[in-house]
């Protein structure tokens, strides 16, 4: 195996080389996945907490549905968003297909059920523990929601990271709705697919190592923040 055939060597030269095209691809990957996770979190955290606290007809069906959607195949989510955003589809007039915005929408749909379902489970466990106390303080469900979400914050950070993992790792959805356009919608995962299809396996694996390092770095940062916060706030 020569040096250029070694994926670790390739990954190292990619990172050290700071190639501007690669940096643009990495930044787009991060941007798309982070916006998707933030958007999904804003919607899914309150919904998950509400599902844990309120009792209403159809609640169990909704929980089962959310749990099942955690396994939504990315390519199916991509296809749905494609049909929605295509010119022939209901939202076609906005011309969003083959743009980063389309990729954000697809990834938000993929991440939303994961964050909502896991938030529901986390908050429900806490609620079962503290329901008596909270009620004796005269809190109704609406007032309990922020309190319980705040108390569950460290668990919820892991939930959000799981969502980020899903977003940054998937390729099926962004390939369909983004189109893997060079310099516009090409991200890390679609680059890896492209290089694999060219038979450039060391480069494909090298890009994979770069992506994995990046995700590890983000997880390490999140872990550090949460550990520091735990020590400070007890």
């Amino acid at each position, binding site marked *: 195996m020569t040096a250029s055939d070694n994926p670790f060597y390739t990954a190292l030269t990619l990172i050290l080389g700071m190639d501007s095209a690669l940096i643009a691809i990495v930044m787009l990957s991060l*941007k798309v996945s*982070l*916006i998707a996770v*933030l*958007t999904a*979190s*804003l919607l899914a955290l309150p919904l998950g907490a509400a599902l844990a606290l309120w009792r209403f007809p159809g609640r169990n069906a909704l929980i089962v549905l959310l749990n099942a959607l955690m396994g939504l195949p990315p390519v199916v989510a991509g296809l749905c968003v494609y049909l929605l955003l*295509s*010119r*022939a*589809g209901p939202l*076609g*007039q906005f*011309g969003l*297909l*083959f*743009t*980063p*915005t389309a990729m*954000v929408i697809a990834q938000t749909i993929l991440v939303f059920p994961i964050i909502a379902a896991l938030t529901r489970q986390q908050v429900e466990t806490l609620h079962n523990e503290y329901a008596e106390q909270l009620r004796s303080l005269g809190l109704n469900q609406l007032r309990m929601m*922020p*309190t319980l*979400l*705040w108390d569950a914050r460290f668990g919820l950070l892991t939930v959000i990271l799981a969502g980020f993992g899903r977003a940054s790792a998937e390729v099926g959805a962004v390939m369909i709705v983004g*189109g*893997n*356009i*060079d310099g*516009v919608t090409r991200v890390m995962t679609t680059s890896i697919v*492209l290089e*694999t*299809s*060219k*038979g*450039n*396996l060391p480069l494909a694996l090298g890009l994979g190592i770069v992506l994995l390092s990046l995700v590890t770095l983000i997880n390490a940062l999140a872990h550090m923040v949460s550990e520091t916060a735990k020590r400070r706030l007890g």
Partner: protein
Amino acid sequence: MKKTTTLASAGFLTSGLVGLLWSASLLARDDFITLASTTSTENSGLFNAIIATFTDATGINVRVVAVGTGQAFEIARRGDADSLLVHDTAGEVQFIADGYASERLDVMYNDFVIVGPSDDPADVSSSDNVADALVRIAESESPFASRGDDSGTNRAELRLWKDAGITPQGAWYRELGSGMGPTLNTAAGMNAYSFTDRATWVAFQNPQDLVLLFEGDDALFNQYASVLLSEQQHPHLKHALAAQWHQWLVSEKGQQAIADFNVNGQPLFFPNAQSLSNTQ
């Protein structure tokens, strides 16, 4: 109450951040068209080489969505691309007849080749013509990896089996449902024969034990054409910009850019526009 405030401000901050990142991604928009084309043209690096020349001359950027020919037609049919560059003459003529496009122009050609394991168990390399080569593969039941994805290459392969009087089926004939590159990766992995366009083959970097075994039959001719989409069908498309691209491809400058493109000194596409127009 303090917790509620903290949580609310965290939510506020996050939505602000989302808005900021989102608007940043919508900035920087100049003239561009979206071109639906095939993986062979994109993966070989042709577009990288010629689009820069076109953009320098016209200020129009070309965003390439590289898919199989079947999917490229579908993208254009739905009005999601401004222009189309594919290699399935029969399909293109039908597309025009269906009213989705107004004209097609021959732009360039290359050829298909048969690749396979270097020890060539079916003795394909001594075939007289492509039909003979396919008969040898079928009779020896040597593993054959087919795209099976309704791409231009897949359609050409199926036509050639039909012309050879063979219905390919059985454990030896493997339909992969993949693009050209993934199909070659799989063929290399299982040491199978495969049918590929020359451009993808020459640019392919993981051949392992596969070698080129058969080439040169006229039936292996592979014509690429630019298709001008119908203004009536999809009035919202950037027809004026797309027409500039369409005309540039067949102009002297466009044809020269295609001729100049090569991989390791080997030209992969041969310009053959019928009438060199004087628009550029």
